């Protein structure tokens, strides 16, 4: 079993962080993993993305050209990567930020108003993790012990309060029903 994730949106939305969380979770579950960010003059407001691979097999190329899981948090990213998703793959859309629907009919789609949910629960910066929670639930990979374990690795020890917020955001995404 291999999952190739492409996580894309604006810089500052925590896309690289969400990818890092998924890659740590995979590693702690004993999978082969890789994480590759876009890098360069991208900054808050610019476009950013990361490729994440979690697999039972050794990872070949860390570059994800054709994801089976696409998470998008802005319209340009959906426009750019919608056609790249493999048939039968899944697209997770932040429907607060992206008004249009996915055109493809051969993929699964989840619309989650993550940015709105985050704002309503006082966690404005954690829409990324709400979507990530939905991804894990939809893929049947939401295992609380591994989730917590991975969060301990990616949340800075200087901000222990962020652990609880991230945990809550993930659960919010997991429990969201359209």
């Amino acid at each position, binding site marked *: 079993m291999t999952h190739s994730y492409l996580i894309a949106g604006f810089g500052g939305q925590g896309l690289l962080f969400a990818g890092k969380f998924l*890659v740590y979770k995979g*590693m702690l579950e004993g999978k082969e993993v890789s994480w590759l960010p876009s*890098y360069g003059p991208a900054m808050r407001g610019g476009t950013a993305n990361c490729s994440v691979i979690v697999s039972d097999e050794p*990872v*070949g190329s*860390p570059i994800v*050209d054709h994801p089976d899981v696409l998470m998008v948090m802005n319209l340009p990213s959906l426009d750019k990567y919608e056609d790249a998703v493999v048939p039968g793959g899944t697209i997770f859309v932040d429907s607060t930020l992206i008004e249009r629907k996915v055109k493809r009919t051969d993929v699964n789609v989840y619309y989650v108003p993550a940015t709105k949910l985050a704002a309503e629960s006082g966690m404005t910066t954690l829409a990324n993790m709400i979507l990530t929670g939905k991804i894990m639930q939809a893929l049947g990979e939401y295992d609380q012990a591994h989730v917590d374990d991975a969060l301990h690795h990616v949340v800075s020890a200087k901000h222990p309060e962020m652990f609880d917020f991230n945990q809550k955001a993930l659960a919010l995404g997991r429990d969201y029903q359209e």
Partner: protein
Amino acid sequence: MKGNEAIAEAAIQAGCRHYFGYPITPQTEVAAYMAKRMPKIGGCFLQAESEIAAINMVYGVASAGKRVMTSSSSPGISLKGEGISYMAGANLPALVVNVQRGGPGLGGIQPSQSDYNQATRGGAHGDFHLLVLAPASVQEMADLTMLGFDLADKYRMTAMILADGTMGQMMEPVEIHPREIPECDKSWALTGTKMQRERNIINSLSMDPYDLERMNLERYERYAAVERDEVRYESYRMDDAEICVVAFGIAARVAKNAINEARKQGVKVGLIRPITLWPFPKAPLKAAAETCKSFITVELNMGQMVDDVRLATECKRPIITCNRTGGVIPSAAEVYNAIMNAQKGGQAE
């Protein structure tokens, strides 16, 4: 851990306590990691005023017989060329890391392998080589850094890690363990005579041509030993291969995906991945030229390593090139198409 950070931590575990550098994308995490760690372990991190200053500081510490490194990306390595040549002339061991980006000139900042020729031909004036190691995973970023220090000491020459922006920026699991540093005679080092011995001289200037020739001949005797004993490569699905893909670093990772896809279609294709770019794995390629009907080279440049493949295979078999340049990475689909093209007996477009 990011590839760049793995290099830095591995260097520390290999006993390197001196780092001199100047920031440049996409390798800056090496310097950032060193800046954090070195003061805590009694080492020296120094952000020099320029690349040229940094490489000359490396020359200084290497002269004292200590493990030392610098890192940069393509344009910065060109600036360091003069110092690298001086270190070769003075027979100084050190580690230089090049996390390549697109060129020429200031080029871009995306991943590239376009410094292959520069690295494998010494990279500056004079008769010399660097021992060039090309990692293809974050684990190898660490392992080859440690190996680089060992081999540099053993052969009294500069070793280079030739990585690219992808290798530097990506994260993978990595294990870096403290290890024993092999014993190495450094009686040549400038450690102070304490009035107990004759003075040592470290210098790259020799006005007597016969003397300079003798020194160059001696250096090339060491190079011959490196070529004999230190060739490293990975052979992947080559047992029954009729098509041989040759690629290093990130290009080899992409090629593996394409090879596995082509294998599903029944195409007998494998990969030879040079790990040492100098010394180049000539023997396995020569052997492959006996059993394979064609070769494919995959590079993030206009085709540089392909010349070494031609030499190693003595131009016995057709070679299809699959290259992207300027910071673009060939896709697995492009490599797959090249494989299918080779299967049909076609030539490169």
